[in-house]
């Protein structure tokens, strides 16, 4: 039952006629807008064979593919790193000792509050000035994983706190140490409940890899498209459009995966997946 069916009663014959009319009018408007857009595009050469001719070559697609592969690589490495570090951060956030908990909270708040781009400037300028010069790939990965660790850590905290108290009590009664109960009992369950949110975080990290555009030394998809556009001077828009569509399709697929996992978890175990009220929820809200 959605809001539409509740707001608008099932129409009678007159209502149906009216709705049909509305629908026809709106299709006409849509067609008109599409026509105007297409004509503008056409007038400015978006459909010129010359502008599309580079995309007949295998090498061009190969370059774009390599760029995309670099995006995926950075996202995967960054996500893996942040999952490992995030587990430790979450453990720290759950600690009873204020000396451990407060620094972890500050870390989370700070890295949730800094724009990723600023962080990227920071790592790529400050780290070399401290004598740590790395390939741009690692600056990107460090930035993304620092940012993502804060989110994943908070998620781990939320996931563990969502578990029934009995779990940790039973672990204590069986003689598990705090470390053992965390890594053997609490974390595996929490990770399962977090899995939809983790996939959504993957979307955010993947979106973040496009910021590598500012680094200049990292050949990601957006950079590849721009370089191609500069080389074949008429195809900039086409190349960037292809890049945008590629990002869009991958992100849609990942969001679908997140909601599929969410549905399966609910169906199988009857558990509500853990989401943060922060950035994570927004990517997964479907």
């Amino acid at each position, binding site marked *: 039952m959605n809001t539409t069916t509740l707001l608008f009663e099932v129409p009678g014959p007159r209502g149906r006629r009216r709705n049909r009319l509305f629908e026809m009018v709106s299709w006409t408007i849509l067609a008109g807008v599409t026509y105007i857009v297409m004509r*503008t595009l056409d007038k400015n050469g978006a459909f010129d064979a010359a502008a599309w001719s580079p995309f007949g070559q295998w090498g061009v697609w190969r370059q774009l593919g390599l760029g995309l592969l670099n995006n995926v690589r950075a996202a995967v490495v960054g996500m893996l790193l942040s999952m490992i570090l995030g587990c430790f951060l979450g453990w720290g956030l759950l600690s009873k000792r204020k000396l451990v908990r407060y620094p972890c909270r500050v870390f989370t708040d700070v890295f*949730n509050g800094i724009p990723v781009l600023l962080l990227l*400037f920071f790592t790529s300028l400050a780290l070399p000035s401290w004598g740590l010069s790395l390939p741009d790939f690692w600056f990107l990965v460090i930035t993304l994983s620092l940012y993502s660790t804060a989110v994943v850590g908070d998620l781990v905290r939320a996931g563990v706190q969502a578990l029934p108290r009995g779990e940790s009590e039973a672990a204590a009664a069986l003689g598990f140490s705090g470390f053992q109960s965390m890594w053997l009992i609490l974390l595996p369950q929490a990770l399962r409940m977090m899995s939809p949110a983790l996939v959504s975080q993957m979307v955010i990290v993947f*979106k973040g890899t496009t910021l590598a555009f500012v680094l200049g030394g990292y050949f990601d998809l957006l950079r590849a498209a721009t370089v191609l556009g500069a080389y074949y001077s008429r195809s900039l828009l086409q190349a960037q459009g292809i890049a945008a569509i590629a990002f869009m399709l991958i992100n849609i697929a990942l969001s679908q995966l997140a909601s599929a996992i969410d549905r399966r978890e609910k169906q199988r175990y009857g558990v509500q997946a853990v989401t943060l009220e922060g950035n994570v929820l*927004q990517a997964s809200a479907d």
Partner: protein
Amino acid sequence: MSVLFVHSGEFAWGIEFTLGLVALGWIGAMVLGTVLVIMHVSPIRTVRVVAAGYIVVFRNIPIPVQMVLFIFGLPLLGIVFPLFTSAAIVLVTYHAAFVCETLRSGMNAVAVGELEASRSLGFGPFGTIRHLVLPQAFAAVVQPLGNVLILLVKNSSVAAIVGVAELTFVADKIAIEEVQAFAVLGGAAVAYVVVCLVLKRFVAFLEYGVVFSK
């Protein structure tokens, strides 16, 4: 530290630009998001499809890509806006999708009986949306909308990659000129964190204000 004081004027400009971008982006995103969410519950299929398509497209294209496409791509088609305006438009188009999604989840919080009651009292569909659904939806999602606002503050920095002189851009420029990345970028980071924390407190305060008994 003294670097920050020497360049405090530039920093003030940067912060002003950032806040301007955030204000414009937020107003636009709220208006467009509300329009989209109304379109999303429309009984006319075309309108629903347009709204859903908008959300899918603009939510899934990363904002740097949108920014680059808008500022380097569209001029090739003869569509040119000033730099600041373009950045604000991209922020609006990207975040309107998130505002719409958030409001949609807020609409689900409206009780079915209230909708029926409103209809039986003679309110039309749009009267119901205007007087019953939207106020409750907004009140239910103050916190998530606050998160979208904080996301907007952070994403406004992306305008730096196309050269809008907002805080991140100014900080990067000064850091390169003065070769003091740590102090300068650290100062900018503190500014962002302060803005985000203040907004968080403000949203919590606002939520406390709009909580009503259900």
